[in-house]
């Protein structure tokens, strides 16, 4: 198994055979060569990274791969080995602390993953073994086992369906958690196997595991006593995928073909890779700069030391002679150890504690997301979930949002909204009263309380009841339901409410349910006859003669039925564009208005027409259909020709409006995201029409948006091959969207000006053609064209995507120029790969299981929460962490610079300026808490303002606070202050008699004065930056300063028995007894902060402006959003194509 995995990892398929042979039920087959139970991997799903055994070494290895940790390890080792100015404890202790904290955190996270894995792996399933059923843990299923699955259970591995409880050998499956399609799919048993499973002796030959969900090729050999083995072909319709759910079928038996990590679901997962935030990359870049500073400092000092020593009498004055050992040491070795000593002395410039603080900030900060009550959804009683705290700040940097459609943008819950019969509007308000439901009348027509004639009404409703391919769900435990339907009125509605329908499209169910609300109930299809219960509770029966199937080109479907009285009727429903030309023109006008208005509101509209067929007409149609169906060649074309012939001269009876309910505030959220400068791409496995209408409803596409389509349909061209057409279209779109477009200002994606908006649509098949063109050479050109077009479109819709294709798209954008930060949001297992691929993956705690949530970085209950997550939390976290990082580098620079300068005054002898306690405590105790509090609590702009002004998000786009300019500013500030600290005290010490008793101060007093100025300055600098002073900030800032003073007294107030040198004894207290020391501390602090205060003040003239502007801006924003939410509703009309069909 290991090798197999290895093979897969290395992509080396040479050793592998092309197919695998599976013995059903592990029964040896008579005919074949000796039964060799081949080795397949077990059914365990592993998403965790560590085990108990390898945790320590692996985790340590991972941690020391981090450049900073490795650096500190080296410093620590140098301190242990070489005689250095500071003890190993000063750097060993913090390092140990960092490593431990990180290890605990990662261990805990992996523990959770183990738990989740176990939940899946230990799930009990029934396996048929030697003629009896055995309960087994899911992970123990082996390839070849015959597994029993009951209704509503998910399949534990990939199975070939052998037997179903349904008579016709089918079963229904929903693959919602795999590809996002929530409709029921029919799968078939292999012929000849459904009987007598125990006696079945068969082998299955099938291809090796591959990730394509819709492809499967295999063969089954069935051996029967004294007969030639029968061979049956196997296709995807026989394969039940792990992760799919059995529906409407009591139980099935299947044989496991792919297990564990080889299932198609697992293959569609992508390996978990550690996600690193862009901020971390900036940190690493800064780190390198500081490393260079550090090394050059050490080099300068080492050089100077030897230059200085070469002078007569300087190297070894009589008062400071060397030991014999030192004299004997090789000169170059000495230089090297001196260099290392300087490195150790200055190593504090690289802030070890920054990593601890950043980790803590991220870890603690993520609680604010979990705690946010705005993320709490009362429906599922859950709030947001944070799986990785490493990416908090990345939420403030998102440039591309990839969203799933089903269940993310929409609720995947169709609802019948209204219908229009003969020009009169019927709006169903609630189900309580039929009469109420019909009173709502069309205001536009100004015919209050008028209705269409009773006859027309009923005709329309019958049409709704008949014109579909819906099946009634067989009531599971309620066996008697169908019998009771005829029963007493009182209980009827309740029972009907519970009635479940199954259809390939949720729209159809919505229509049937809609008709039910108006009193016409579809009871089911039994042996070619459809039963309807009408308003008078009479059962009407219709004989179903023909179904003229839906297809996306015709965009309509029809049924031909025969009433009891012998009339033959054709009902047709379809998109207005395909119905209107086929009905009498005078009928159209009355309906069109309604249809257009409904479409404007984002509903899916359908028109219903009917036609009475005379006997001759029917006979002709019947013959035509039968002939066409039997045709061997061009069957499709012939059928369509007949369909088109039949569906003419109909009369329009009405229209319906069905709403695929968007998620709450989906449109507002999308608008906010676009306002914040993000580009939204919709990636869905769904049909193009459906997806497009959703995009309109979410206002991703607007009325003025010009759609650039690149789909299978647009590629159809008589003249050209698909490949050529693709290129041609790409060129054309590129011309339109990229070359002709006026240069857009960076960061501004949606302007409300007259600029043409473009929307781009591509489907899965075209995408794969684009990604893997027959000519390898074209690939990069295509890709770059495609990317450029997409980058200039306000919204992009990719439909009919396989999960891996979604990830491919994300990857392509992620790796494009400028490597933008991407975010994926989805709710189903089909989104997992893209969630994992994107920089930030967001899972929605939707209905489609927990796969997405488990693999996401953040999980939120609803789409609408994304707005606050990005605009408020993301923005704040970014600002906080950016400030944290810059501040850390700054404060360590001005911490170490005086120590560096001191080397020029002590003969470059590596004499530390500060006491060891100060060196160690500076980052850990004295200055760590204020910045941590700041980085958790700072709100430089109020959350409400952030939410109201999406545009504020753009201010921090492109890592604005961690670019080189701000970094340079902070560095210059640090250098300025460091120089000031050192030389200020230096000039004071030109006369070290600083006390009024004439006594002099020594070197430790010098260091302590510098250090006091330093601690106060950096803390007050942070206080100046703090815009949001909660009591915690007050407590921590003033508390840190008080603690410093207290600690210094304490540290200098006692003779510490464990210290070999009591060098700081009473130094601090003595310092405070000197007026001059006080005065120099005060003036140096003020002088260091002066530029900062001046900057704040100089910005002041703009200050009142911006401060006044902010509220007004928010008003503008508010107006804008209210305008924009109002405007499309009133003004948007859909192009023909935007009206979805079924």
């Amino acid at each position, binding site marked *: 198994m290991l090798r197999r995995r290895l093979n897969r990892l290395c992509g080396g398929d040479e050793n592998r055979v092309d197919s695998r042979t599976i013995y059903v039920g592990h029964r040896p087959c008579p005919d074949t060569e000796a039964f060799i139970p081949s080795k397949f991997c077990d059914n365990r799903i592993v998403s965790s990274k560590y085990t108990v055994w390898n945790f320590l070494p692996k985790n340590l290895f991972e941690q020391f791969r981090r450049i900073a940790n490795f650096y500190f390890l080296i410093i620590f080792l140098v301190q242990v080995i070489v005689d250095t100015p500071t003890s190993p404890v000063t750097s060993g202790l913090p390092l140990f602390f960092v490593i431990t904290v990180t290890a605990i955190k990662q261990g805990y996270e992996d523990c959770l993953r183990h738990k989740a894995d176990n939940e899946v792996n230990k799930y009990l399933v029934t396996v048929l073994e030697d003629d009896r059923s055995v309960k087994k843990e899911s992970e123990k299923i082996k390839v070849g086992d015959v597994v029993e699955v009951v209704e509503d259970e998910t399949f534990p591995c990939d199975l070939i369906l052998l037997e179903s409880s349904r008579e016709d050998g089918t079963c229904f499956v929903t693959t919602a958690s795999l590809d996002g399609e929530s409709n029921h799919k029919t799968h078939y048993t292999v012929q000849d196997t459904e009987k007598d499973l125990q006696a079945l002796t068969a082998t299955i030959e099938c291809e090796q595991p591959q990730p394509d969900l819709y492809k499967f090729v295999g063969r089954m050999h069935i051996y029967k006593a004294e007969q030639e083995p029968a061979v049956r072909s196997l296709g995807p319709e026989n394969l039940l995928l792990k992760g799919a759910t059995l529906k409407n079928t009591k139980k099935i038996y299947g044989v496991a073909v792919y297990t564990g990590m080889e299932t198609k679901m697992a293959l569609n997962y992508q390996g978990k890779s550690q996600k690193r935030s862009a901020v971390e990359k900036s940190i690493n870049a800064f780190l390198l700069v500081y490393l260079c500073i550090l090394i050059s400092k050490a080099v300068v000092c080492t050089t100077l030391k030897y230059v200085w020593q070469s002078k007569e009498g300087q190297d070894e*004055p009589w008062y400071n002679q060397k030991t014999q050992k030192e004299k004997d040491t090789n000169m170059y070795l000495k230089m090297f150890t001196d260099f290392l000593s300087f490195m150790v002395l200055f190593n504090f410039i690289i802030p070890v504690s920054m990593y601890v603080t950043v980790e803590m900030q991220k870890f603690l900060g993520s609680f604010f997301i979990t705690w946010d009550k705005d993320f709490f959804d009362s429906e599922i009683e859950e709030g947001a979930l944070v799986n990785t705290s490493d990416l908090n700040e990345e939420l403030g940097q998102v440039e591309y949002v990839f969203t799933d459609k089903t269940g993310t943008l929409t609720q995947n819950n169709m609802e019948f909204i209204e219908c229009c019969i003969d020009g009169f509007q019927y709006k169903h308000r609630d189900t309580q009263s039929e009469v109420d439901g019909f009173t709502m009348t069309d205001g536009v027509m100004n015919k209050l309380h008028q209705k269409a004639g009773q006859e027309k009404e009923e005709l329309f409703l019958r049409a709704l009841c008949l014109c579909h391919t819906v099946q009634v769900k067989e009531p599971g435990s309620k066996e008697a339901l169908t019998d009771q339907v005829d029963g007493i009125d009182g209980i009827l509605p309740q029972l009907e409410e519970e009635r479940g329908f199954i259809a390939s499209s949720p729209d159809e169910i919505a229509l049937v349910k809609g008709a039910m609300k108006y009193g016409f109930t579809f009871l089911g299809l039994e042996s070619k006859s459809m039963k309807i219960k009408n308003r008078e509770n009479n059962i009407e029966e219709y004989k179903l003669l023909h179904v003229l199937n839906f297809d996306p080109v015709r965009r309509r479907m029809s049924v031909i039925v025969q009433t009891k009285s012998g009339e033959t009727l054709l009902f047709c429903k379809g998109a207005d564009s395909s119905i209107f030309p086929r009905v009498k023109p005078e009928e159209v006008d009355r309906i069109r208005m309604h249809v257009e208005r409904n479409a404007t509101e984002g509903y899916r509209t359908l028109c219903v027409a009917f036609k009475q067929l005379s006997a001759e007409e029917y006979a002709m149609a019947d013959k035509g259909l039968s002939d066409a169906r039997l045709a061997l060649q061009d069957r499709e074309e012939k059928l369509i020709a007949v369909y088109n012939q039949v569906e003419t001269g109909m009369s329009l009876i009405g229209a319906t409006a069905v709403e695929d309910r968007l998620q709450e505030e989906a449109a507002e959220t999308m608008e906010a995201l676009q306002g914040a400068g993000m580009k939204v791409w919709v990636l869905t496995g769904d049909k193009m029409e459906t997806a497009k209408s959703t995009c309109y409803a979410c206002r991703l596409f607007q009325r003025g948006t010009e759609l650039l389509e690149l789909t299978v349909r647009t590629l159809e061209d008589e003249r050209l091959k698909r490949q050529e057409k693709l290129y041609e279209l790409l060129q054309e779109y590129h011309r339109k969207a990229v070359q002709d477009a006026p240069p857009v200002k960076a960061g501004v994606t949606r302007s409300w000006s007259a600029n043409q908006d473009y929307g781009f649509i591509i489907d899965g098949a075209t995408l794969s053609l684009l990604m893997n063109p027959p000519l390898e050479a074209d690939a990069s050109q295509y890709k770059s064209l495609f990317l450029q077009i997409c980058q200039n479109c306000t919204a992009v819709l990719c439909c009919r995507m396989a999960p891996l294709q979604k990830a491919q798209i994300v990857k392509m954008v992620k790796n494009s120029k400028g490597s933008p930060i991407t975010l994926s949001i989805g709710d189903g297992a089909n989104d997992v790969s893209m969630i994992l691929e994107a920089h930030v993956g967001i899972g929605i705690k939707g209905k489609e299981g927990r796969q997405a949530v488990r693999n996401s970085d953040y999980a939120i209950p609803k789409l609408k929460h994304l707005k606050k997550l990005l605009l408020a939390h993301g923005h704040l976290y970014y600002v906080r962490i950016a400030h944290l990082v810059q501040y850390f580098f700054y404060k360590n620079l001005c911490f170490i610079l005086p120590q560096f300068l001191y080397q020029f005054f002590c003969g470059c*002898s590596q004499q530390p300026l500060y006491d060891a306690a100060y060196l160690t405590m500076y980052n850990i105790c004295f200055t760590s808490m204020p910045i941590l509090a700041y980085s958790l609590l700072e709100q430089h702009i109020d959350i409400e303002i952030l939410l109201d002004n999406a545009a504020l998000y753009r201010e921090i786009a492109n890592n604005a606070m961690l670019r080189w300019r701000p970094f340079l500013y902070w560095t210059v500030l640090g250098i300025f202050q460091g120089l000031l600290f050192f030389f200020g005290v230096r000039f004071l010490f030109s006369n070290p008699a600083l006390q009024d*008793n004439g006594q002099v101060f020594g070197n430790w007093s010098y260091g302590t004065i510098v250090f006091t100025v330093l601690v106060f300055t950096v803390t007050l600098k942070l206080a100046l930056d703090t815009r949001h002073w909660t009591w915690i900030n007050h407590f921590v800032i003033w508390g840190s300063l008080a603690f410093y003073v207290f600690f210094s007294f304490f540290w200098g107030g006692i003779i510490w028995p464990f210290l070999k040198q009591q060098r700081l004894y009473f130094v601090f207290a003595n310092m405070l007894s000197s007026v001059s020391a006080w005065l120099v501390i005060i003036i140096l602090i003020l002088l260091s902060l002066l530029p900062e205060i001046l900057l704040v003040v100089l910005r002041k*003239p703009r200050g009142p402006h911006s401060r006044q502007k902010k509220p007004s801006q928010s008003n503008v924003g508010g107006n804008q959003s209210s305008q924009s939410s109002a405007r499309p509703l009133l003004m948007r009309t859909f192009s023909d194509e935007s009206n979805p069909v079924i």
Partner: protein
Amino acid sequence: MKNEEEASERPDNTAFTQQQLPAWQPVLSAGIIIPGFLIIGLAFLGIGIALFLTSQTIQVLEMDYTGVEKDSPCFRCTSPSNQTCTCEVTFSLSTLFTGPVFFYYGLSNYFQNFRKYGVSKDDYQLTGDTQYFKSPRDVCFPYAHDSKNNPIVPCGAIASSMFNDTFELYQIINGTKKKVPLDGKGISWWTDYNIKYRNPLPVNGSFASAFDGTVKPINWPKAAYELDLTDPNNNGFLNQDFLVWMRRAALPQFRKLYRRITEGDYATGLPAGNYSLTVYYNYPVLSFDGRKKVVFSNVSWMGGKNDFLGIAYLVVGSLCVVMSVVMLIVYAKFKFSDDDDA
């Protein structure tokens, strides 16, 4: 029970968890900044003037007695052959040198802040722990043992290099020398003398025998227990000159307090007249190009003479005042333009 569970699922609705803690959002408005700057500026100017004037009143007399120049009185002491050398530096005061006068010695190009030098002492020895007399710490090397491998107490480079020039000050009145009493008490930090450094307990009533088995530092003329035989409280590790020396200077050019002139006729200061300073010249500095000097100075509340602090305060103070005026002008302008806008 169920309610409780639900409550635990629901995030706490507290100001802290919702990031809605009441907060003070300071706005550095011109109304605060301008008067603030003005007040700070004026205060600094005041302090600066006080500092500057105080610094001006402090009298300082510095004399280099290294003897590099041929005509300097101590030139003859610079030759290494001259083991015990005395030289005499004369000076005259035209006015009263207000007392109390502090007598410093100063060294330059002398690195007491070498790292190896700085750690080269044994604090356990210096707290009087005789256990460590026999086995000095490693850091004391090469000043831990003499050539016969006897342990040195006090060990280490700092102690070994203790400044050992001594001075006597005479006022010359009508050709006769009148000795100026020099007060050697209270020249070291109180805590150093009283807490940090301790002498070993006398053995059999003899302080010297506590040092049995050890030798004096090589450069010292006499052992630690003989530093001041006249005053047992100023002897051994508690010798104030020793303590002053052990507190390392911060910079290579430094001065250390040698004596105070507080007694007798000189309690109010050194009157105008001629003085002669007798130097017992022992301490070699020329090998590393060092200089030695003596400094007479009086002190004020701010310590010794230091013009830097006063000037710094004056500069920053006037800077603040100027800035507040500039800001006032800028602010007035912008305020008007703001009004125009509105």
